[in-house]
């Protein structure tokens, strides 16, 4: 492990799904990296491939359908894609853990919540029954649920509390990396804020890195250090959060920011991005955003533009963005 190796480095990740004999190009050459303690926000529309990226890191893509075709995912210099299934099982939930989108369905309905948390702890720490349950109760209290409720079933909890249980599970083994897949989308706004605050606090306490998947730029603004804008399985813009928020460069990112309601401006129609994301069965030849781009040029339809540096920590895949429109 060399000293200046990034903590997490995803390089040229390509993931495909096969569906009824046809190939869905879900992720097409995504690269990003993450330092210890940093949070990366993956932003994009539904179906852009954000969740697929997270699942590839944990290697829990649906089995025969989803395949990683290319690329590498290095955690502390070790390529996760080359580990055996058994070695991966030791990493899942232990070094890398995941918080799922819908707390209503991500807990086993026939298992007591304390048991479910203890399950992770037992799996990775070889603890006996008693101390694992004890630790599970501690974890519940850490996320603000009284330990006396550990012996209750998920249906006896509210949505917000279930998500806390899921977070307690994800944090139980002090992971190095948390993959949070829209952890707050299924919750109402007040609970969203609480849950986000809690995740961030616990993350800082344990110096954990996080990849936060969301379509909410407000959440990114609050929580993340870095942002990657994902579109049709590609990174369109990537870099430091402040640089991107202050100076969004890709026409798609500009469009996303245009779609945020602004309280300081007198009410008018929000701008939206015309059209729909491309069909992942049949991606455009050139720049994947070209069919919807307002500033499209002739050769956008013919060639792809690689990510190029346009600021100190700011990369953009639009060939014409640096020139200004």
């Amino acid at each position, binding site marked *: 492990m060399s000293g200046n190796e990034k903590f997490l480095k995803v390089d040229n990740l390509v993931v495909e799904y096969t569906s009824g004999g046809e190939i869905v190009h879900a992720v097409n050459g995504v690269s990003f990296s993450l330092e210890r303690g940093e949070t990366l926000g993956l932003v994009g529309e539904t179906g852009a491939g954000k969740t697929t990226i997270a699942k590839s890191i*944990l290697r*829990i893509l649906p089995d*025969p359908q989803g395949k990683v075709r290319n690329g590498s995912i290095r955690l502390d210099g070790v390529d996760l894609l080359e580990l055996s299934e058994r070695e*991966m*099982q*030791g*990493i*899942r*939930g*232990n070094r890398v*853990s*995941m918080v*799922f*989108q*819908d707390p209503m*369905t*991500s*807990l*086993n*309905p*026939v*298992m*007591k919540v304390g048991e479910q948390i203890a*399950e*992770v702890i037992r*799996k*990775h720490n070889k603890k006996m029954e008693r101390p694992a349950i004890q630790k599970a109760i501690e974890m519940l209290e850490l996320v*603000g649920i*009284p330990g*006396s*409720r550990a*012996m*209750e*079933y998920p*249906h*006896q909890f509210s949505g917000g509390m279930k998500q806390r249980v*899921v977070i307690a*599970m994800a944090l139980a083994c002090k992971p190095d990396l948390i993959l949070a897949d829209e952890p707050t989308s299924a919750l109402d706004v007040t609970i969203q804020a609480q849950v986000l605050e809690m995740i961030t606090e616990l993350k800082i306490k344990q110096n954990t890195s996080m990849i936060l998947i969301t379509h909410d730029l407000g959440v990114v603004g609050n929580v993340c250090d870095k942002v990657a804008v994902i579109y049709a399985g590609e990174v369109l813009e990537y870099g430091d959060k402040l640089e991107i928020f202050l100076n969004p460069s890709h026409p798609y990112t500009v469009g996303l920011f245009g779609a945020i309601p602004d309280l300081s401006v007198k009410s008018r129609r929000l701008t939206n991005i015309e059209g729909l994301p491309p069909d992942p069965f049949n991606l455009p030849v050139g720049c994947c955003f070209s069919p919807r781009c307002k500033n499209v040029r002739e050769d956008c339809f013919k060639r792809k533009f690689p990510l190029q540096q346009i600021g100190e920590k700011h990369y953009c895949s639009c060939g014409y963005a640096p020139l200004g429109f």
Partner: protein
Amino acid sequence: MISIRTRFRTKKEGREKSESTLHATFMRLCRNPTAVFGGIVFIILALLVILAPWLTPYDYAAYDTKNLFQPPSPAHWCGTDQFGRDILTRLLYGGRYSMSMGFIAVGFAAIGGVSLGSICGYIGGRLDDIVMRFLDIFQAIPGILLTICMAAALGNGFDKVIIALSLTRIPSIARLMRGSVMKIRGMEYLEAAEAIGCSKARRIIKYVIPNSMAPVIVEVTMGIASTVLQLATLSYIGLGVQPPTPEWGAMLSDAKRYILIKPYMIMFPGIFIALTVLSLNFLGDGLRDALDPKLKD
């Protein structure tokens, strides 16, 4: 953030509710009068059958030539048969065979069906195709015909009848379990289980099977009833339990010759079979309602 009041409430409720799923199902079952009736009748029948040696002074196999064809009387509540044997005694001892064989056969079928169904449903793919087509062949043959063929091929005997009865019941349970598992397989908590490092075997045992058992429990309850019937059918046509072992179907078969002159001889075994099957079906129906998640209160 959590006020004292909520903390008090949660503590109290936590105590009361902690037996949740099983307990709640049982409570719902108790609120269904038909199911309670079925349950009580079945328990009474089971107790009668289990306690048979203490309840009746007669021997089920010994001939009593002085008392042939006695009609029901205080000494012989259900009368005596062509060899002078007390019919009630034979019914109680016969129930031991009918019920225990029903339970054992369905138990084996449940173990086989649940494991086959959950493996096929969870793993899917080619294995699923092969196993399911094989089970299709089984199911294309009428159940009773298949049982008769198997019983005839395996020969007579307690164990062989059980094998025949359980083998013919496996396909329906496996199919039901497979469907149920396929529904559960898409649930996010399985992905979550994978994401915490659970192995495939553990996911099937701890997550998939407990969540997909509800329809199988109903099928098994009903299955015991129909196995009791099938066993009676087998014995009736002479392929099941052999005389002098008293078995309900065999007793029916014996009595059929005297149906016109001594109708009580065929009536009482019929009543016992009907009561057992009916009570189990009521219970199964009640379980189906009680286990239905849509009725969760």
